[in-house]
């Protein structure tokens, strides 16, 4: 249900409030780390080009080598900080949601202990990835690949164009798959909740079943529940795999096509796309190193898309239990 997931999405965003600045910092460090990676690739390609084609010796390349090493170090720091701020964002939000949920729902007769504990522990925990990975990645996915694409265009317009055309296909395909995945995921989260409930009921009633000599007979229904759990999980995962396979397809194609195209360009068989200049090793190596990175950040978003679905599914449950509050208040006593 798109409307429901839209609500859930809005609700998730509205939970950010004071965690926003941590989110910004997370995104900033992601971009900085990405920038370092571009410089790293450039200096590596340049060093190799100078040595191979221009027979430069090490002493003439000291500057580039030092730049390379410095960006390596800087990138490590940025990545570390990114992780810290990502965690901080998620923890802030989770704590706030839990606090409110516990306060609002203790003694809500529409709930039971199984649902209450799964919601407050598992479903809130399931929001983690959305805030720590998906959101910052979403904010940077437009920026980082844009920078990489621009750099690539500057190097070779044909490859730039090729990647420009194929890169948006990735989110498009992902969205296609994502819509299906979201529906599937919602069902799954519901099922997990009710199966947890079922297990809890069975375990707590196990002594009663035993007095009636029925415990082993109860096994059959546990087998069925466990199987249901397994099937539902695999269904959700299969869709996630399909979306990651789509990305893999484009990423792999990008590397293979660029490599072959660039190789032939260097051999002088193709001059199309190099803007009239002769392709150089520096340019082509740089492109080869960057092209996978373009997809890596999209791929990361793809991985985190799963986190988004998980979060939306969980958010829907949290919202639903909030809405049904005190509605089912039937006691036949």
């Amino acid at each position: 249900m798109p409307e429901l997931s839209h609500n859930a999405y809005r609700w998730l965003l509205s939970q950010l409030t004071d965690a926003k600045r941590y989110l910004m910092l997370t995104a900033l460090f992601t971009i900085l780390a990405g920038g370092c990676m571009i410089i790293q690739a450039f200096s590596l390609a340049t060093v190799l080009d100078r040595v191979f084609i221009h027979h430069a010796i090490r002493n003439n390349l000291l500057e580039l080598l030092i730049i390379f090493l410095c960006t390596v170090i800087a990138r490590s720091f940025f990545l570390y900080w990114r992780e810290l701020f990502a965690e901080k964002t998620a923890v802030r939000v989770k704590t706030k949601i839990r606090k409110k949920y516990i306060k609002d729902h203790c003694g809500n007769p529409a709930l039971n202990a199984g649902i209450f504990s799964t919601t407050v522990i598992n479903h809130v925990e399931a929001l983690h990835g959305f805030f720590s990975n998906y959101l910052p990645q979403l904010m940077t996915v437009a920026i980082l690949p844009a920078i990489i694409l621009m750099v690539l265009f500057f190097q070779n317009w044909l490859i730039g164009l090729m990647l420009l055309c194929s890169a948006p296909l990735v989110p498009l395909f992902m969205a296609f798959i994502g819509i299906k995945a979201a529906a599937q995921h919602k069902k799954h989260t519901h099922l997990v909740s009710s199966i947890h409930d079922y297990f809890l009921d069975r375990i707590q009633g196990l002594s009663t079943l035993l007095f009636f000599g029925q415990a082993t007979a109860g096994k059959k229904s546990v087998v069925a529940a466990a199987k249901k759990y397994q099937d539902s999980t695999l269904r959700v995962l299969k869709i996630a795999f399909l979306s990651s396979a789509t990305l893999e397809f484009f990423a792999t194609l990008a590397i293979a096509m660029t490599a072959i195209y660039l190789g032939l360009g260097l051999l002088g068989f193709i001059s199309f796309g190099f803007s009239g200049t002769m392709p150089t090793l520096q340019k082509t190596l740089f492109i080869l190193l960057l092209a996978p990175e373009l997809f890596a950040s999209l791929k990361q978003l793809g991985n985190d898309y799963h986190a988004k679905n998980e979060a939306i599914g969980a958010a829907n449950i949290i919202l639903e239990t909030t809405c049904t509050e005190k509605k089912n208040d039937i006691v036949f006593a």
Partner: protein
Amino acid sequence: MILFLLKQVLHARWKLLLGFSLSLLLALSSIALLAISGWFITASALAGLTAITAMQFNYFIPAGVIRLLAFIRILSRYFDRVVNHDVTLTLLSQWRVWFYEKLLPLSPAKLIHAERGKLLNHMTQDINTLDRYYLSFFLPLSVTFIVLMAVIATTFYFSPMISMLSFVTILFFILMTVLFVLPRALSAGSKIQESMMRLRVECVEFFQGYFDKQQYGDTSQSLTDRFLLLSYFQKKMAKLKGLSIASTSFFSGLTIFLILWIAIPLVNQHILSAAILTLLILLVLGTFEQLSVIPAACLSLGETAQAVTELKKVVNDSPEVVFSAQHAQKMLSLDLQIQQISFHYPNRSQNVIHDFSLMIPHREKIGICGPSGAGKSTLAYLLTRVWDPQSGDIFIGDKNLKTLSESQLRQTILLVAQNPHIFNTTVRENLIFSRKDIDDQACWEALKKVVLADVIRSLPVQLDTPMGEFGKYFSGGQIRRIAIARALLFPTPILILDEPSAGLDENTMTTLWENCAEDFSRKTIIVLSHDEKLLRKMGRVATLEN
């Protein structure tokens, strides 16, 4: 336990092997694709310097190899995921059922005293983390090991010096991860798992406690505070994760830097070819991407290890009572004879029941009274072998209780406990779960006897009415009567009722007793109660004192 896990794994070995090959294929083709592409470009650039070398350069083979590798990588990616997850999920669901089976002999003694949320946590969360043993440890680590060996061997073939150098930095990276990150991640991970489990117990008890006592106030705050402890350990984990990501990136860059430092003079002196250097650098880059699974595995090991410890604790727990495996024996009489039994709970020295003897002929209606804590419920547990007395014996006719098989015992003695469990399902299911051959007619008759038929009939869906968790849609007295009704539907010659009148008014109890008179006349009825009015209906009253 490990043996069982292994047995299941062996059972699925072909699928596992397929998954493993796909993972290996994926890793190798990914690294090779990038490395060969780099080699191809460099070689082309050098060949392209003059028209003649360009014409002589055979680009068909490398271009073909690149296309092939790309094809393998795309396919193995998808199938690797599907096959490996399918097989682990199957294993998980088998383990879940197996865990449930393991609970059976422990119960009911352990179950009655187990914290309510804990077992659920084992059955769901803990078992879920088990798949990581394969998906996050065994599979990626063994694939990485093979990839690493392949890369070291390849680099060694081209340049032993660069090979050794890469090997040293990679080794350093692995050692740092294993010696620094791993122990810290282990402790943080087990703390996370532990606090998750404690939280689940506390949430369940908090919520159910709220219903029992309607208590509210500081508890909500203390539950919220509990979550802060969880975030504290999660933050520790995040730091370690950040460190791992940073160190992977750092060591990867450092290795490339060192390779450049050593290799540039070698290329200058024409000892190492340029295209090979690009190949080696990209191989190392790809290898580090693969190596990042090592810190990832270290990070999740703690959580998994804790889950396994918890599961082991439950599974390796020895049962309190062991039932005889004998077939049903012919019983000469159903007289119950309790001979000088004494019992104390484990870890307590004081006897709850001390040197107690009682003879109960078949079909007698006997009340057993005594102040609370005198051991009435304990006596019921001893008669149903939840526990065994430390001294003395209980006989049915000439058979010692201990020589009966479990199913024979259950068909002879039935206990309606003080707090009977109502399953979160319909009225009908709660009545007939013991026997599937009971029809609605019998259900209504039983309900009529316990004075519930009219109430249930007035509900819109009657027998299909859901009872809710612990029968929360019904009152305590109604729950007790449902429990008695289901005992009536399960014809044992001996029936023990523990505080049957709690929550029932006198009139209802009297009517119920009269309605059940015919059923009771065929049975031995043992009523454990301190309700004097009820005890007056009994033929005899014995007293339990401590």
